[in-house]
């Protein structure tokens, strides 16, 4: 019925035209800005000032990337970003899995108490200053662990993993218990392998979140260049360019390094460098990204 009568009415045709037009506009509006930044990053820095770089570089050069990549700080910042993404996602997912498993057990005596305590954290926070002072008192300020520990137990991830475990057959746990398996063994040898899809989803979320974070670096580790992350370096460039518009010395200082680069070129190039890992993994992983959101939210 659908195929033979596809354009039976002009209404159908008009709606299709509107839908496809809007979708094409959405795609262009989403992708063009990324593409434009890429073109600017590949264009000669001085030439870019003339304007008019839209789709393709006018004077193609890899100079901007050479300047950025000849800076040893960038490699170090990348290393810290990768480390926090890897360590942060492993610790977060493991801890959330343990809690989620325990509170999925209907007979667990502290189940209600723990769920409440954890879910409540989604709706309030101690605020910027008290949290900062706490980190200071715990001697986490100026350390790598300030990236990992505060966010390790995440309420939302626990809820998502828990609803997934709830969907597994409970008889698995029962029969394993009758066979004398310990809770640890049930969790790590039976439940965890079955949870791989949801664990993959949550791992990706946490890894992306860790990769994208800059505010904790800004707040706690501004004074420690060796703990700087890629996003924080990018943020510093963004802020310095903002002040550079009123401060001509900034652009002048960049030409002294032998190669001529401008704040605009640096900004575009750094943006691409910081985005590249996500752009690279994105097409392979995007189906996992959404998986958890739908199980986390649709379950009623």
């Amino acid at each position, binding site marked *: 019925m659908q195929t033979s009568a596809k354009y039976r009415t002009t*209404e*159908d045709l008009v709606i299709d035209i*509107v*839908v496809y037009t*809007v*979708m094409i506009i*959405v*795609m262009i509006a989403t992708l*063009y*800005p*990324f593409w434009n930044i890429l073109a*600017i990053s590949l264009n000669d820095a001085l030439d*870019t000032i003339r304007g008019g*770089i839209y789709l393709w570089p006018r004077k193609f050069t890899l100079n901007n990337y050479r300047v950025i990549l000849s800076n040893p700080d960038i490699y170090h910042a990348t290393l810290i970003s990768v480390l926090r993404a890897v360590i942060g996602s492993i610790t977060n997912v493991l*801890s959330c899995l*343990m*809690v989620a*498993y*325990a509170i999925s057990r209907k*007979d*667990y*005596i502290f189940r209600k108490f723990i769920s409440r*305590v*954890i879910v*409540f*954290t*989604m*709706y*309030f926070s*101690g*605020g*910027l*200053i*008290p949290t900062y*002072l*706490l980190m200071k008192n715990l001697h986490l300020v100026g350390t790598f662990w300030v990236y990992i520990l505060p966010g*390790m137990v995440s309420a939302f991830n626990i809820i998502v993993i828990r609803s997934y475990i709830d969907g597994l057959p409970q008889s698995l746990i029962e029969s394993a218990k009758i066979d004398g398996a*310990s809770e640890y063994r049930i969790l790590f040898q039976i439940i965890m392998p079955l949870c791989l899809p949801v664990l993959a989803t949550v791992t990706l979320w946490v890894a*992306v979140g860790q990769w*994208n*974070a*800059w505010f904790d670096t800004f707040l706690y580790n501004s004074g420690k260049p060796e703990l700087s992350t890629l*996003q924080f370096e*990018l*943020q510093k460039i*963004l802020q310095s360019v903002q002040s550079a518009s009123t401060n001509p010395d900034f652009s002048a200082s960049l030409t002294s390094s032998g190669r001529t680069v401008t704040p*605009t070129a640096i*900004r575009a190039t750094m*943006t691409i460098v*910081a*985005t590249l890992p996500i*752009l690279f993994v*994105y097409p392979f992983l*995007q189906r996992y*990204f*959404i998986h958890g*959101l*739908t199980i986390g*939210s649709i379950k*009623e």
Partner: protein
Amino acid sequence: MQSSKKGIFSTIYNQRQLIVLTFPFLIMVLIFNYFPLWGWLLAFKDYKPYLGFQNSEWVGFKNFADLFSDVYFFQALRNTLVISCLKLIFNFLSSITFAILLNEIKNMLFKRTVQTISYLPHFVSWVVAANIVYTVLSPDYGIINDLLVKFHIIKEPINFLGEPQYFWFIAPATEVWKEMGWNAIIYLAAMTNIDPQLYEAASIDGAGRLKRIWYITLPGILPTVKILLIMNVGWILNAGFEQMYLLQRPSTLDYSDILETYILRYGIGSGRWSYATAAGIFNSVVSLILVTTANKVASKIGEGERVF
């Protein structure tokens, strides 16, 4: 009495492994999420870092009094509310419309391509997004200005991010760019739960596509819309710190300063710790009241549709 006590202890003993799996993390949550609440006492002191918490002087409600007599606090509060509300409206309208249009596409390959592209900005950081916004809106080489000048809509390029009057529009617009596709997922999921027979019956009865959208798709996602709307009311004092901080300029502060950026400037920037804590408490308490009220309303509207 004795036996029930024994019962509790033996249950605890039997479940010791589950306790081992949860208590270390419970303690972490208590430290990192609940302990800062104790820091709220700072708001009632005149905290001086060199004196420490114990020795700083108690000042009662002085910080709150100062807060409520500060013009800039009310300006930040106004901006927070306006920006949040605009974002709420823009986000809902755009993502619902997008989901409905996407649902009308029969070509699966095209549909998946559009969807995949539309989530992409959700996964980049606000720093990257802010850089992109800066580039696109730049008065020197930004595409928006170039297009507007080329089509003679404006004569001179506009410094969009530097002019305060545009900020209330730029904040929700950039948020839509970043999050529309992601927010639409949940509506699309709700649409897949609508019984296809409804569409068939309607088209046999002669309903065109617009009518089917209006009488079947929209009512089908209405419960989801309601719940999300109620949930979002609780976040109305969170206008999106990272985005605002990265997009605001000193010249636009009159319209771009929100409570959280205000707290950051006064707290860590000017060293008025206690004052900033008081502002933070105001933010948390109002949010908490909004969330619990919204949650109550949600539980009244639909059974089992509470958030917590």
